């Protein structure tokens, strides 16, 4: 479909765990990404949320082919890029760029800003030296920096300014898709607002598509059109941004939403929080069936720990992989923990069509 710039189809990325004295054999795998499928529409922002260990960064790197997926297909702009060689990927890399989290680590401290921003242009031979320089200065201005700082080094800039340099670098080659891996997590709140607004403006000015990875749900809500929630290498829920926040279906989404501190003391006090027990489990040994079942307040034995739930549809883009989705939102803690008698699919099947 022309409308979808990226289709990810059941992508898996497993990192082998080996043992052995001389000859190493694989005894297990870290299932960082374990069967994720979704599509990104041209011109939209897809937010990806999840906590540490959910696999969102690994998946981003698989999409960019910085890592090779163990299984599954990645179709970018109509072309299957999952198994392309390095040489074949090269021209495609112009169309997908990445912005990273740490503005202090993602810029080479020994290179000048002009070089950093213009490097991709030179690699892809997009212009003479003079043209590249002009373009770089243009870009610096577009992201709100002074073009005369072309010859400065990264350490002469603040965190927010460095992130702008990273954005300019990503924009240089006119990409179609930009993957933003936690671009504002390391920034102060006031600077964060500047960068988010900048990203929004650039999207409308240049017709960009974003995949925006973050752990901060507020930020994801502000900037995303649609959102995917990940947990332990799998998708938990996928929906339009407004709908996800207004009526989440997956209990994990509910827990995430209720855990976010609200800067409004009265509202915060009135809220019922679902506080999850324990820590995120190890991706080497994911739980059987639904990976969330050990911590889920709606867990039902015999159902949730047997088979991985399929993605049930709730209309439009809204999908959730849960046998006992939340019935309404906000729910009280008691309501959340009450389990419905029938599995969802049976209930759905029983509905008159």
């Amino acid at each position: 479909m022309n409308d979808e710039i990226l289709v990810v189809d059941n992508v898996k990325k497993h990192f082998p765990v080996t043992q052995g004295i001389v000859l190493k054999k694989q005894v297990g795998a870290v299932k960082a990404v374990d069967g994720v499928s979704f599509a990104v529409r041209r011109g939209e922002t897809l937010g990806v949320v999840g906590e540490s260990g959910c696999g969102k960064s690994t998946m981003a790197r698989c999409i960019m082919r910085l890592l090779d997926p163990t299984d599954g297909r990645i179709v970018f702009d109509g072309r299957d890029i999952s198994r392309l060689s390095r040489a074949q990927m090269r021209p495609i890399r112009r169309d997908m760029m990445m912005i990273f989290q740490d503005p202090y680590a993602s810029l080479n401290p020994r290179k000048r800003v002009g070089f950093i921003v213009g490097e991709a242009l030179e690699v892809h031979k997009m212009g003479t030296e003079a043209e590249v320089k002009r373009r770089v200065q243009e870009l610096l201005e577009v992201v709100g920096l002074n073009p005369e700082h072309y010859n400065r080094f990264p350490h002469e800039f603040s965190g927010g300014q460095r992130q702008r340099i990273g954005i300019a670098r990503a924009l240089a080659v006119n990409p179609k898709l930009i993957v933003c891996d936690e671009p504002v997590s390391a920034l102060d709140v006031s600077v964060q607002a500047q960068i988010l607004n900048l990203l929004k403006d650039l999207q409308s000015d240049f017709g960009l598509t974003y995949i925006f990875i973050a752990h901060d749900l507020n930020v994801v809500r502000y900037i995303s059109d649609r959102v995917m929630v990940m947990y332990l290498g799998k998708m938990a829920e996928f929906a339009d941004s407004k709908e996800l926040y207004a009526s989440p279906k997956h209990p994990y989404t509910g827990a995430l939403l209720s855990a976010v501190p609200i800067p409004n003391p009265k509202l915060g006090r009135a809220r019922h929080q679902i506080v999850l027990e324990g820590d995120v489990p190890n991706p080497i040994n994911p739980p059987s069936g639904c990976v969330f079942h050990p911590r889920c307040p709606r867990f039902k034995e015999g159902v949730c720990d047997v088979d991985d739930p399929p993605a049930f549809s709730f209309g439009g883009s809204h999908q959730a992989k849960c046998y006992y989705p939340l019935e309404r939102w906000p729910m009280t803690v008691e309501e959340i923990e009450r389990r419905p008698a029938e599995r969802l699919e049976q209930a759905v099947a029983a509905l008159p069509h």
Partner: protein
Amino acid sequence: MTTAEPLLDVRDLRTAFLTDDGIVGAVDGVSFSLDAGRTLGIVGESGCGKSVTNLTIMGLNPKTARVSGQALLRGEDLLQAAPRRLREIRGNEIAMIFQDPMTSLNPVHRIGDQLVEAVLLHNDISHAEAKARALESLEEVGIPQAARRIDDYPHQFSGGMRQRVMIAMALINDPDVLIADEPTTALDVTTQAQIISLIAQLQKEHGTAVIIITHDLGVVAEIADEIVVMYAARVVERGPVDELFERPSHPYTWGLLGSLPRLEADVERLAQIPGQPPSLLAPPRGCRFNPRCPYAFQRCHDEDPTLIKVSGTDDHVQACFLDEGTKAREAAKTLSAAAA
């Protein structure tokens, strides 16, 4: 309003560091007070001096620091205390936990030993008794299978568990004050919720007063009774939590509140504060926020604002020259944008 003496009373605290480039005034006249059993939230962005303020109270600054002012713990000035007295107080009457649980525990010692160390530093009891206390405190903070895990090393715990261990270590001697410096910043959202509710619960059980330092306005809204907003080494606003969120009275506070993306509302565009915080080597004259303040006028460049009471309140103060009318209007605008 209590008329009793505050437990911790900080008055006009100033901390300066001598560096190669000059004198950096990291804390410039900060005052606040903390009553027993209450929670004070100190908010501000990086470099505003919130961490240094508390390190100064604890006496944990490097030797190049020049400190003035008073930090009265039950009337005793910590800034004048002898080093031995300070060591008695640390970990015993005032305890502190830090941001990064990954690096705040010694990697080559078992956590049981580190907890026991905290006990034995301030209590003349046997090793066995100290270990028993350590075990109790681990159970209290919710470490599963504490009896087995007490002999584990820090790297065998997850981030959230390590932070719980830090909290256990801080509260093991039942201090009167707990200072928590960005305790949840390095943690996931769901773990953060666990830790915040743990701190709140333990506070209720032990009656500890808590100072929580953070940049996250949501966290202080949840847990604090009173809030201090800091900018560029100074206090710009201070007041009870509900009051401050309903009637924010300083342009920086409006900027902070306005630039937050919201969960519960649709925000068209985030308000942004232009520029970035000033260098503390050569801060701006007058009100330090004036280079970035959309309402700044001449007086802001010439005079240092002092903290004055917001009309109609006793305990809400702010440091801005704007008149009350404008403030009320702008505050209402910020709040309505957030509630839309």
